[in-house]
């Protein structure tokens, strides 16, 4: 278990900036996730921590020791690659024994450790097989097993669940979390799947195209996203965004969207301080969008575009001008295309359209 720090790390591949001026502090024994779409730089960051890639600028510290010039094998870290990187010509046993052989453990010790680890991962009957004879899930567990046989300071995981089919992925998520917790080591987990990150990690770094957007616990990212990107990435179904114009009329402030006006008088000062133009984006999560069938005070009338019955809920698509916003309703809520419903936003986020930064948020 060790802490990992990146200070102003940058890495370019030719013209492409993989990582830009990144500073991260990962705590000892923390389950830390790097979350972002393809090309965000997650794999590059992991490889730099591992030592198979050198940063162009900046420093990396493991347990406060700068490791820039220390080769991978001396950093006491381990890594599970996206492809699992199992040695195709070695049996499962030999794959898992490899790190221990490199440490000159006795054969008896190796046998004991490998078999113990295989037992935990339910792969003991596969020990004599070759990687090509294994299924995706089995290979993934062997890859994990190879990292578990020794006590590394840091365990790096590069999208380990991505190559599994959907059902297996859901099953493995729980098992994975338990295994990782039992490892008692610092874990850095890269994934493009926000659900994985949010359910497994203590803290998440949200990345896009080499830049860090926000680094916080899952709850904070969900409740207080700093900008449009984080707000759109975290949460499923994703947050709705409605383009509005901020206007003031008769001592009241409104957000003017195509089909409705939303009063924001109490936030007016805050909006005016932080906005760079009058173009503001109203963000509201589907789960905070309450819909009812009959008119109520303060609700906005919108038309139903289509509804998707995803039990135990219903996702209702509502038309606002040209755009569609989604709302979540209980399964009993019966609507058809074209119905008029009344909508209330229970929690809203306001973002500046130009910069994407959060201006204000309000719970109603």
């Amino acid at each position, binding site marked *: 278990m060790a802490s990992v720090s990146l200070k102003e790390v940058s890495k370019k591949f030719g013209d492409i900036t993989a990582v830009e001026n990144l500073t991260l502090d990962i705590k000892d024994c923390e389950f830390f996730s790097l979350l972002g779409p393809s090309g965000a730089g997650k794999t590059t960051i992991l490889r730099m921590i591992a030592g198979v890639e050198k940063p162009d600028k900046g420093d990396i510290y493991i347990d406060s020791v700068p490791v820039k010039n220390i080769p*991978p*094998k001396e950093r006491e870290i*381990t890594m599970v*690659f996206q492809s699992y*990187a199992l040695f195709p010509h070695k049996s499962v046993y030999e794959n898992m024994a490899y*790190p221990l052989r490199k440490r000159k453990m006795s054969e008896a010790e190796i046998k004991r450790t490998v078999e113990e680890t295989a037992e935990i991962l339910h792969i003991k009957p596969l020990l004599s097989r070759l990687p090509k004879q294994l299924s995706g899930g089995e290979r993934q567990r062997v890859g994990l097993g190879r990292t578990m046989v020794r006590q590394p300071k840091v365990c790096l995981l590069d999208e380990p669940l991505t190559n599994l089919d959907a059902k297996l992925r859901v099953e493995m998520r729980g098992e994975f979390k338990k295994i990782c917790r039992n490892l008692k080591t610092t874990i850095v987990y890269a994934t493009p799947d926000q659900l994985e990150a949010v359910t497994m990690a203590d803290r998440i770094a949200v990345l896009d195209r080499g830049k860090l957007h926000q680094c916080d616990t899952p709850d904070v990212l969900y409740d207080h996203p700093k900008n449009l990107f984080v707000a759109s990435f975290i949460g499923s179904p994703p947050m709705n965004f409605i383009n509005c114009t901020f206007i003031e009329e008769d001592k009241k402030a409104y957000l003017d969207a195509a089909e409705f006006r939303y009063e924001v008088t109490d936030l007016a000062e805050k909006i005016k301080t932080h906005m760079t133009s009058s173009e503001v984006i109203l963000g509201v999560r589907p789960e905070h969008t309450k819909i009812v069938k009959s008119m109520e005070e303060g609700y906005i009338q919108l038309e139903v575009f289509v509804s998707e019955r995803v039990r135990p809920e219903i996702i209702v698509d509502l038309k606002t001008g040209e755009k569609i916003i989604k709302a979540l309703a209980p399964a009993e809520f019966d609507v058809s295309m074209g119905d008029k419903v009344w909508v209330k936003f229970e929690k809203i986020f306001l973002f500046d359209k130009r910069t994407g930064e959060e201006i204000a948020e309000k719970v109603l």
Partner: protein
Amino acid sequence: MLKIEVKTKRKIVDCLYYIGVIIVLIAVLFPFVWMFLTSIKKELDVLAIPPRIFFEPTIENYIFVFERSDIIKGLINSLIIVGSVIALAIPISMLAAYGFTRFNVGGGHLQFYILTVRMFPPIAAIVPYFVIFRNFGLLDNHLSIILLNTLFNMPFTIWLLAGFLREIPQDLEEAAMIEGATRFEAFREITLPLIAPALAVAAIFAAIFTWNEFLFAFILTRSEAITVTRVMAGFYTERGILWGPLSACSTLCTVPMFILALMIQKYIVRGLTFGAVR
């Protein structure tokens, strides 16, 4: 109606396929068959027109070859040279290919430059090499032939091995290094076993090219380092071409390579189709 048409079409296609294969087989095997038949014909039968299909076989040509030419020396020398070339070219090519693919040495330009060495006709280089080796006292010496063949085979073997190395994911070596191996250990324990078929293929090609090499052997050897190709050239005499003994000698010289190829054909097929499977 339609069903019958499809079936007949298939049969026709199959027939054409077999005809094609037979044509290719004939074209490839005919010279060897002719050569072998000529080697067991008496001189009169060899020169007969039209060619005799039925004749009394004889081994007088083979006896001639063993008694009157340096075939034994030639075979031994060629084997020594081929063995040495493989021993030199393969490890060096392997390391060079590794450098090119893993470290991008020379940024692609160096590798291309090396490949171009093979693109000019070797005959263009023969005069400078003759002068160099003469000055070093290496004429009619195994070393000069070994060095030249190593040099001229390496562009191909490097290119071949680099191609195969690119197919092996770097993930594997990196995983090994993270788990405690040095780069060289990762290479030796992980990459090398995986690339063994390619090494076999490279070795065979180098062996065959070296065995068949005539130009340098002819110019640079006389009697000590004489190779099988030069021995064969000896059958072109002032009295004319001694077809019978020449065929016998050729047959004898083809045999070692034939056996070698037979032994390793499994690897050759595997090696050549490696890329396709991925």
